């Protein structure tokens, strides 16, 4: 069947009333968590994962995906109006977006952010639809050695892009792998790291771990600071960008879309890296670089396009290889597995309705976001006025509900609290949670493939370097590991570091 026929089948799935409702809820909740600082797409997806269990896999994944790309739209609103990024991918939008708002141009900044997001988001979906099936065919030739090397590259790349010490980021990735291995060994069926404690036999759940690290940990960090928000109070009008705004923005949007999509597909990549890279590129290419930081619309259009294209691109390694490139995709992998699906080279071939249904829902979700977002700006502004001392108890309430509802086990609440306090303390010592979450999800996959590769090769370690794709991935990972020794690369790392 050709792509258009499959897309037609996908629209059949996506336009089913229940899936439309899930798509709408996903993008609406995504925008909401994007708007609200202190709660990002990872915690929102973890929170709502149990809610999706009652429906079909299509509905659940459509909603989870909607939260991710919806949060990219919403994040820009807070960046522009409050100068606080709603989520990490919108950090750079603060620079010029808020400067535009202070100069009375909040409307065009919000409008351009929405249009750039829509254009790049649609571009990424087209690319995902066209490229993913081809890449999945190619990925069928991948063996356990290639998977191990790709995962090692992904983890190394993420530790390279994480802010702070790379040694500490690597250490956290190791902790994540170890925690991912708690429970039953899938090959030998032996208990591991359970310390004869029954609730640990099934391993640690992704929901309590993620909610602890990103939900409770974030709240604890925020409560110790006096959160002051200065919302641009002038009436927001003229959301449609002018002809001059479009003249200045079309090229950054095009470049941001291409760059963002490409960076999104890389292991360890995603929306955050894409937005930072786009801003740096636009500033370098601009004939008026001095305007950047003072309210240049290119500084809004490029990064907003890039983070949305990056969000779309990040679906490719997950859908075709079963390898999540970042923490958000790791959670989506968890959602697939909970629904009894295994992302990888056979996902598209075996479940074309599911894959093209998700793609079609993303087209629909993008249109929903464009239509909904601009008229709803007033509501988002009002939401931003909710004081943090009211907001954070509610965030904690919802995290508790989400964790308990996912397992009906109070032990998971203790797990969440433990990881919340853990995230709060390690952050003080300069450790980041992001590499740990990705490694936590990848840990069992990595171990499984490593052991299989060694058994198949008869214990030949050279199998990892002699196979071309595997060898190249390991070489790249090695270069990344050695990069802190090269001052020029170290400076570049600091420029694109995550979690600014």
């Amino acid at each position: 069947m050709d792509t258009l026929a499959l897309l037609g089948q996908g629209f059949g799935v996506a336009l089913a009333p229940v899936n439309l409702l899930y798509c709408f809820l996903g993008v609406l909740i995504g925008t909401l968590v994007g708007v609200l600082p202190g709660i990002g797409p990872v915690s929102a997806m973890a929170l709502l994962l149990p809610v999706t269990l009652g429906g079909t896999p299509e509905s659940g994944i459509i909603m989870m995906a909607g939260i991710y790309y919806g949060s990219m739209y919403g994040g820009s609103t807070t960046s522009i109006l409050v100068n606080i990024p709603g989520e990490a991918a919108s950090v750079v939008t603060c620079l010029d977006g808020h400067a535009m708002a202070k100069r009375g141009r909040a409307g065009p900044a919000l409008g351009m952010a929405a249009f750039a997001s829509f254009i790049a988001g649609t571009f990424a979906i087209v690319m995902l639809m066209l490229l993913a099936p081809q890449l999945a065919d190619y990925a069928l030739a991948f063996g356990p050695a290639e998977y191990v090397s790709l995962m090692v590259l992904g983890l190394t790349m993420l530790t390279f892009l994480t802010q702070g010490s790379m040694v500490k980021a690597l250490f956290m990735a190791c902790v994540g792998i170890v925690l991912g291995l708690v429970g039953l060994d899938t090959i030998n069926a032996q208990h591991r790291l359970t310390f004869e404690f029954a609730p640990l036999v099934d391993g640690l759940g992704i929901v309590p771990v993620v909610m602890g690290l990103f939900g409770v940990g974030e709240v604890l960090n925020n409560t110790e600071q006096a959160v002051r928000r200065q919302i641009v109070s002038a009436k927001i009008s003229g959301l449609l960008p002018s002809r001059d705004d479009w003249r200045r923005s079309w090229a950054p949007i095009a470049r941001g879309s291409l760059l963002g999509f490409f960076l999104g597909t890389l292991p360890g990549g995603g929306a955050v890296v894409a937005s930072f890279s786009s801003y740096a590129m636009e500033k370098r290419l601009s004939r008026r670089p001095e305007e950047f930081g003072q309210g240049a619309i290119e500084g809004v259009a490029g990064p907003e396009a890039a983070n949305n294209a990056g969000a779309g691109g990040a679906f490719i390694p997950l859908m075709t290889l079963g390898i999540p490139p970042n923490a958000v995709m790791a959670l989506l992998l968890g959602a697939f597995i909970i629904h009894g699906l295994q992302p990888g080279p056979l996902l598209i071939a075996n479940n074309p309705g599911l894959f093209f249904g998700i793609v079609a829902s993303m087209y629909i979700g993008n249109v929903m976001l464009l239509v909904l977002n601009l008229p709803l700006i007033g509501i988002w502004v009002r939401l931003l006025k909710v004081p943090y001392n009211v907001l954070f108890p509610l965030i904690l309430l919802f995290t508790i509900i989400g964790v308990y509802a996912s397992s009906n086990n109070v032990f998971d609440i203790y797990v969440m609290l433990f990881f919340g306090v853990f995230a709060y303390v390690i952050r003080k010592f300069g450790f980041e949670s992001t590499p740990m979450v990705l490694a936590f999800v990848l840990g069992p996959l990595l171990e499984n493939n490593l052991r299989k590769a060694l058994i198949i090769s008869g214990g030949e370690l050279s199998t990892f370097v002699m196979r071309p794709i595997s060898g190249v991935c390991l070489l790249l990972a090695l270069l990344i590991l050695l990069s802190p020794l090269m001052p020029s690369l170290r400076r570049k790392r600091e420029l694109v570091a995550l979690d600014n």
Partner: protein
Amino acid sequence: MIRRLHNDGQRMKIDDSQLWSGLIGLALGAIVVWQGYEHDIGVVTEPGTGFVLFYVGWFMVLLSAVMLLIAIREGGAPIASLWEGVRWSRPMIAIVLLIAFALVFERLGFLLSTMALLIGLMRLIDPVPWPRALPIAVLAPLGSWFVIQKMLKVALPAGMLGIG
């Protein structure tokens, strides 16, 4: 007490955060190595349950050694300074309230325990006036209970009083 000289000539303090990061990391790495060893490492042709744990543990030990080296050469911030200029008592109160909540959650039931938690969080950390805190503390758990228990049919604990 460790009293080595840093590159800048200052003495290393026992409350150096980098030093403690390395030491705790070293201990964790050693535990992971030991656990890997306990769970059967196997051989390279047939790796056992503890194979990955064992080698990841050694990598953690190596990384911790690098952290310690950095602590000895460059030093890190004193631990107390990590909480300087922030209101650290607020997260402490939140942690205590959350632990207390987890302990009574099943006994008191969802509604009573979450209402008490919300009142505690809103009144003890950054006080929200009573007229605003009370309705939120009552209505938010009630609304959540209605959605989760009544609409989504997910059972929430009713507690020994059977409320909810």
